[in-house]
């Protein structure tokens, strides 16, 4: 245990990298979710089809494969990404594809009459989404987004395989240098659990806040 204490600075560094990676890719994923998810409602078939291709591509190929592709193949094609950037893009793009389905499903779950009412009031497409559909759809998205956030946190561990020095990477360093196995892995699992539990708490808080005073119930589902 004393040996592990010596390594606490790199564990802290790894925790910070993991959190950075999670937050940055969550941001990327959130933007992609909305752009791709809302593109599915476009009146132009080209936009709709591109969104479907994006979705199927990033949901259908494994996240690890995407990460290795970005790390090893893109440089050969002349695109050089720093490992951290490749990790953020890979995690963000991958989770963005799942998120886009959440956005699409939530907008579709808004009752048909609301769509029609907005049209009847002669709202522009922007107004319809901004003032009618999204305010009703976003609360529905929150619990599922919370689950995806946990998936994202867990996905960042895979980024250790493309040399990003996150928690998992640091645990491997400790294992190699001290030949300890139980301690480093148990410690990082507990750290991951704590981070994930904080994320769950934050999501629940937002869900509570957003539903307060409105006549909606947000159903927690796995």
């Amino acid at each position, binding site marked *: 245990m004393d040996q592990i204490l010596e390594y606490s600075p790199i564990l802290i560094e790894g925790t910070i990298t993991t959190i950075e990676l999670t937050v940055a890719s969550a941001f990327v994923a959130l933007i992609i979710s909305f752009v791709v998810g809302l593109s599915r409602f476009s009146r132009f078939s080209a936009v709709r089809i591109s969104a479907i291709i994006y979705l199927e591509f990033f949901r*259908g*190929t494994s996240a690890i*494969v995407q990460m290795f592709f970005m790390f*090893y*193949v893109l440089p*050969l094609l002349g695109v050089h990404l720093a490992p951290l950037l490749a990790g953020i893009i890979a995690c963000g793009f991958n989770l963005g594809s799942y998120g886009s389905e959440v956005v699409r499903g939530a907008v579709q779950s808004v009752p048909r009459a609301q769509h029609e009412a907005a049209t009847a009031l002669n709202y522009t497409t922007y107004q319809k989404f901004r003032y009618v559909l999204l305010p009703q759809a976003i609360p529905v998205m929150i619990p599922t987004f919370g689950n995806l956030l946990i998936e994202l946190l867990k996905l960042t561990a895979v980024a250790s395989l493309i040399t990003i020095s996150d928690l998992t990477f640091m645990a491997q360093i400790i294992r190699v240098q001290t030949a300890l196995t139980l301690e480093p892995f148990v410690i990082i*699992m507990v750290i991951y659990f704590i981070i994930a539990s904080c994320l769950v708490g934050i999501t629940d808080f937002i869900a509570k806040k957003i539903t307060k005073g409105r006549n909606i119930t947000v159903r927690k589902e796995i």
Partner: protein
Amino acid sequence: MEWSWQVALDVLPQMAQGLVITIEATFIGAILAYALGLMLAILRMSKSRAISLTTYWVSEFIRRTPLLVQLYFLFYVLPDLGLFLSPLAAGILGLGLHFSTYTSEVFRAGIENVPHGQWEAAKSLNYKPYQTMRYVILPQAIPPMIPPLANYLITMFKETPLLSAITVVELFNAANIYSNSHYKYLEPMTLVGAFFLIVSIPSAYIAMRLEKKYQRRGGGSV
């Protein structure tokens, strides 16, 4: 960087060998995930609060920590504790354990969605607990479970490349080993990605069909 068919043909036989391992890991892992998941679901519904809460937190711990770290744990820590598993066995155990916490939610929801009146009816007909489950509850609970369980099978298939981190030579690792020894990344990585797409798009379509098929019947809410 030019695409070379020669390289592609070269790597294919090795990928085919890896594919066998991938399929093995997916299916055995899935069977394990279903069996353990059912067990967790039953424990979670236990009348004893201690058993139910312990099961809940153990599941949450497994669900909130990355599969990769769990695989490392099984691969590096168990031998130190005197339990030797082959890499593939450790990988399958990890996959099964991780996803059992997801499938248990499916089982639990499926059983809980059977209307309360059905339990009471079975009781009033003097059915034994076995008969109640076998003839009343399960026939109604199982159909709606099939689509989500099929979806987890696809998810597990996409997670198998993680096993490469604990030296299992499955599809992705077979391609990666070839890449590293020949310094050819474009073709193997692209082929792996393409392969995942070829499998996961049709299977996602089949899962969607299953969902439509089982939506009308059962479902629990009449």
